């Protein structure tokens, strides 16, 4: 009886209440009149599937299992017997399922709300905003003391997430390289200066100090050009080992600044 269908579904549940709602749905049961025997049996089937799958079975699932069984057995008791017990609070023929039904309905409200939030999350993705322009040019020179700042860690966290979210909206930076004015020539010179200063070999990745694509590309082209001109030597012992770069002997710096 344990098949893929069950196993996959078990993993897709957000807890025992979610699983129960799914069963109620699947069995087309009236949530106000749950046949406890049937639902318990189905529920236990899933639990067994989860165990066989050795999925990390949250203890809440087991607690719910025993709750279901308890309700089931209470339902089997003849109703009138309860009133004989006198002191029992549940004299007025309370349905043992009431509490469960209440919890299911309450949970279902929020599960539904979560679906709608998901929709809103998706919708929000169709609207693009922009970062504020740099307004500091408009700021007058007033020396605020730190006490006036009035920000806390939540503001900091919020600001960070706002910009993490924004990053997704960034357009390709086609103009970055020209804006930065790093020429290959200049970068070659810089690399040579660094290698000379080291007076020994450097690891390849050390030539890429700035983790930005344009800068890295220029650095890479600069190393290639230096190799071509025999101004540096490159050595690698075997595949994927560190590449070692060294200034060729006798190369002197043309322009040292």
């Amino acid at each position, binding site marked *: 009886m344990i098949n893929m269908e069950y196993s996959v579904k078990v993993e897709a549940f957000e807890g025992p209440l979610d699983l129960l709602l799914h069963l109620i749905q699947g069995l087309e049961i009236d949530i106000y009149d749950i046949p406890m025997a049937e639902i318990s049996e189905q529920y236990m089937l899933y639990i067994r599937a989860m165990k066989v799958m050795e999925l990390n079975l949250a203890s809440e699932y087991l607690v719910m299992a025993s709750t279901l069984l308890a309700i089931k057995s209470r339902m089997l008791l003849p109703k009138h017997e309860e009133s004989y017990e006198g002191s029992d609070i549940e004299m007025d023929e309370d349905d043992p399922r009431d509490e469960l039904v209440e919890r299911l309905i309450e949970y*279902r409200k929020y599960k539904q709300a979560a679906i709608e939030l998901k929709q809103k999350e998706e919708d929000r993705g169709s609207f693009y905003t922009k970062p504020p322009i740099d307004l500091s040019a408009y700021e007058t020179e007033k020396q605020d003391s730190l006490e006036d700042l009035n920000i806390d860690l939540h503001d900091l966290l919020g600001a960070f997430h706002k910009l993490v979210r*924004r990053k997704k909206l960034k357009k390709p930076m086609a103009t970055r390289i020209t804006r930065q004015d790093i020429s290959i020539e200049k970068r070659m010179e810089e690399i040579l200066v660094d290698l000379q200063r080291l007076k020994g070999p450097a690891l390849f990745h050390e030539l890429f100090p700035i983790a930005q694509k344009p800068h890295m590309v220029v650095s890479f082209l600069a190393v290639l050009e230096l190799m071509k001109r025999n101004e540096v030597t490159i050595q690698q012992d075997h595949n994927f080992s560190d590449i070692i770069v060294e200034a060729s002997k006798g190369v002197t710096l043309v322009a040292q600044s």
Partner: protein
Amino acid sequence: MHNHELQAIIESLLFAAGDEGLSSQQLANVLSMPEEEVITFMTALKKVYEDDSRRGIHVMELAGTFQLATKRDMADYIKQLVESPSNSTLSQAGLETLAVVAYKQPITRMAIEDIRGVKTDRPLQTLASKGLIKEIGRAEGAGRAILYGTTDEFLDYFGLKDLSQLPVLMEDAEELDSEEETDLFFKSLQQSLTVNNEE
């Protein structure tokens, strides 16, 4: 102040403020106008942007502020320029937890777990670190449990003006459309498969 000029000024202010947005209060200050007048004007202005087919942007109300944003129809064009369209969306657990917090705030972890029927510490931690919820106080009595509430980032994240814009909770027990249920399940299954493939 002439309406045209006012419109231009507001556009420049909203443009400058970007996704920080401006409240009607802030606009009223800068424009030296009563706040109610600002609100009335903004309502009209929203419609101006909406109705003008030459405009690619419009005014949105997000987290209690007015912001400029691109119109929905433009998304397809902008997407082409977006660096990585990787959408890291919230998990089901996160969305459920957030829904409970949003409607029931201020609320303790225990109360959330009562409703969801599962442990919820991890989703809470994630939501807090994403800036969507925060501690807004402590419960009285023993333990002084943390009370959680939603943040402005929450409103912004879901495109809401304020909490009153949250979808109405389904109060009565209408049966959920079972097809939708299954759909949702297959969607989440697909998502997890996609995640796997991308690794």
